[in-house]
């Protein structure tokens, strides 16, 4: 975590806390959080001892604790941070997947079974990209459920944190999550079938 990005994040969060009328534009915070999360992930890798795992939940919460430890940021700031962190994690993952996908280009697309879309292991970057594309499509018809997926899947937030980040109730989170899950699976399955037809 670089000092400047942490300071910048704190400043922005305090600012949003003290100005109730200000809109919490996540894009403002995003690059800073992006840097911070990436740096933290790298640091973890560098100091890796044994089987230390790397999950979005851990990363995002560790980042949050570092920020909140020193200052008194309220829920409003916290929600703002979580929303930005989820988007940042999504970009980190998708950027990576896109890069990997391009690296592999030329050698032909590795055949991926439908199951690969569900289990994102090494070599699953294409599946990650497909999921992301589907999520973009979902957002174009149903914005809120797409955000819920972003928070939960990429940001590793739990139901309550997601509700906080998006300013909705936990019930809505649950119902949107169910809907989005089904919608995405349906879309991926349809794409896969169409892809299989042409292959």
């Amino acid at each position, binding site marked *: 975590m670089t000092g400047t990005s942490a300071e910048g994040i704190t400043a922005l969060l305090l600012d949003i806390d003290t100005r109730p009328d200000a809109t919490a534009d996540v894009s403002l915070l995003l690059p800073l959080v992006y840097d911070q999360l990436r740096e933290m992930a790298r640091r973890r890798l560098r100091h890796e001892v044994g089987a230390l795992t790397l999950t979005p939940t851990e990363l995002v919460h560790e980042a949050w604790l570092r920020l909140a430890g020193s200052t008194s940021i309220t829920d409003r700031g916290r929600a703002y941070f979580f929303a930005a962190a989820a988007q940042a994690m999504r970009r*980190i993952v998708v950027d990576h997947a896109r890069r990997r996908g391009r690296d592999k280009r030329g050698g032909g697309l590795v055949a991926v079974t439908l199951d690969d879309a569900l289990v994102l292991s090494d070599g699953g970057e294409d599946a990650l990209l497909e999921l992301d594309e589907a999520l973009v499509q979902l957002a174009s018809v149903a914005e809120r459920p797409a955000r819920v997926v972003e928070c939960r899947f990429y940001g590793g937030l739990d139901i309550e944190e997601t509700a906080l980040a998006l300013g909705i109730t936990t019930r809505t989170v649950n119902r949107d999550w169910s809907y989005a899950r089904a*919608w995405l699976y349906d879309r991926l399955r349809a794409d896969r079938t169409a892809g299989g037809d042409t292959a």
Partner: protein
Amino acid sequence: MSVARWEQVAELFADVLELPHDEREAFLMARTTGDPALGADVRRLLAADAAAGPAFPAPLDDRVLRAAAQNVDAVPERVGPWRLLEEIGRGGMGRVFLAERVDGHFEQRAAVKLLKRGMDTDAIVERFRRERQILAALEHPNIARLLDGGVADDGRPFLVMPFVDGTPVTAFADAQRLSIEARLALFRTICFAVEHAHRNLIVHRDLKPSNILVTTDGRPMLLDFGIAKLLTADGDGVDAPTEAGLRMLTPEYAAPEQFGGGPITTSTDVYGLGAVLYELLCGERPRTNGMAPDAEPPTLTAVAERASAAIATSRGTDPTRLRRRLDGDLETIVATALRTEPARRYASVGALREDLERHTMQLPVLARPDSTGYRVSRFVRRHRAAAIAGATIVGLVLAFAITAGVQASRIRRQAVALAVERDRAQREAAAAEQVSNYLVGVFELADPTRSGLGDSITARELLARGAERAELDLAGQPSLAARMIGVIAQAYYNLGQRAGAERLVTRARALHRGDPHADPAGAVPLLRQLMRTQLARGATTDAVAAIEEGISIQSRIDPAGEQMVLLLADRADAQHAAGNRTTTLAAVDSALALADRLTTDAAQSRTVLRRLASVLSYTDDSLRTERVYARSLAAEALADGPRSVGVASTLVGWGKARQKLKDLRGADSLLRLALDIQHEREPRSLREASMLTDVATVAVSQGRFRVADSLVRIVIDIQRERLGEEHRTVASSYATLAAVLQRSGRAAEAIPYFERSIAYHQRTGDDPKYVPVAEWRMAEALREAGRTREALAAFRRSLAGHEAQFAPEYILTANVRRDFGRLLQQQGRAAEAEPMLRRAVEVLAKRWGDGDARVDQARLPLGRALLALGRRNEATTMLAGVHERLTRTRKPDDPVLRDARAALDELQRARAR
């Protein structure tokens, strides 16, 4: 429909999902009776949900995150057609790489800005596409424009601009130890670039030192113009930033409205420039990170108060002087640029720059309520006693202009003029037709379809052909042809084509003489013109002859009129040039005496008064000089108003006269009054530049080198703007700047300007005598700067040039030998120095007399050289003589005398050994 379709589907789907499996179908049927499509959608989702199972989507795998964290920042080898070579910078928006074109179409190195991940790629690329036309049009020598942009293979957006090898402006200024004046000059150039962009409706939005680089040859380059908008503006490109803009901000330099989401205008750049200027001047940033956006920065003097010696040293001064320098105008100007409310800042970058210029010219700045009280108080503060004289003059002129008697005389004069005009019109009616035919013929020459000259005909060619045709077309009217040719000759003269002018006037005079019907009065202006051209080439005898012929003709026509006064003034010029002081003074006296007897109208003729004032400079008669100038000023004010260009140029003449009479303060006051008027009438004109040079010259005599320095820099600015870099006038202003710098003890800074000036003359060769003289002065500067080897080479070139260009006994050549010889002697090369110094002494003694101090100044190094060569007896005789003479004529602490004493001491020590 108030509820979106997806919400209906999602709502129903979630409700169904909460039911046990066997109840779902019935519930669905009941809820979708009127909308079977809704039922189909929900069923489809239910099927997907069942197929997906609870594990979908599986949480992000550890391995994916690891891989992402590791390679996310890797640098692509190339982006678009650009190969990345090395990282040269890192900033808020990403990393910057030196790059070259892969396709090798043309040699081009560029800086590629690879933007951070997390930036909204699609929006940036879209905005780039839209703004590209505008940004590509931004061509200016001090702006690095956007060349290219796109998306790299890994999805990161990139922007390409020319690679600028430079240092941030603040660091550059400190490293070069630029004075406040030089900093202001540099800043002015930056302002011009920003003004250019604003004219193209592009706002920078992120002006800060790291975006303003100065190349090694001192050229400021602005980077990232319009980039901030590319990265932050909202979708429709309207000038209103999204909050995303905030993260791009450099808080120390950003304008308050950029924090608060106010509209971004050119005023935002005024603020940014103000912030850069603030730091350039006092060494600190106007805001520290964390300071409230709308807090006013501390005043310049407050910062200077606690400024370290290092900050002052890097500005070539000490803390006390620095604080004093920043106090007043500069503090006010910077504060005005940095005001929180955009409306209270300078209205434009041009206004900011203009005010700085006014400050540098020591005119009242506008950066505070422009009350008369302030102007007057400032003027009085700056000029004290002299200002009162200036104000009085203007007051008198105004009073004079409104008196009824003067009004009456003006009406009378107009009536006379009308009558004269009518007569002349009748007399010349016949000639008019011929003249107009002739003019048509001349201008047809400029028409490429008719002249067969192509479209490259220049003003000079046109003039040349005009003169030829005048003789042909006006063959029957030689005196008319003579007048035409006289006019063309004047144009030649004004173009600096002196030889051509003289040839034509001579021809005109011959034509006129050969016309038996010519009006003899027509010869007089031709003779006056002839005399002027002859004076210009130093042919004083011819000039005297011409003007005497004119006087004798005029005395037969009208011996006591206006024209005679002008001729007598010309006689003074010619006699002065011929070196006849007594005849000169007599001519001035007769001109003045005759002018006193002129009718009231003629006595107020502006031409007469100007000429009288000009020849009075040959006398030391301050009383008469002042009187003529006062009358001249009144006449000018009457004709065109108290703040006319004519008044300004009279004030200039008056100021120079005062300067000659050693009233420097008075001179300064008058010249500045002139400048104030000129600046108001024709800002940034060549005439203003010439007045600024005059003010600078006075400042040098007063030892106010700092002022002179900054004035000359403005002069150069204006002249370059009007004339281009390749112009004799610009070259000579460079030499002036060099001389000012050298005289203020900043020889090292002077050298490059000497070089530029010399280089111009070497390229064009239009004044071969100039180069050796300038090289002599540059050699001195090189010596003072401790660059001895280069100094010796310059002396050698200068001496060779002098020997080639001038007569052997030329006095300046002797000076070159003296200085060259002295340096050789100091370098221990006595054998070379000795003959050179001996020759210098010989020539100088012949010119100034054997016992003159100027000769002894050359004898001193000669004595030392002799001593070094072991010729002690010669050395002793020479140095003792010098010492003896100087003791008689100089004060005990005179530096030359001290040097002579030191030389004698060296001699004693050498003898003691």
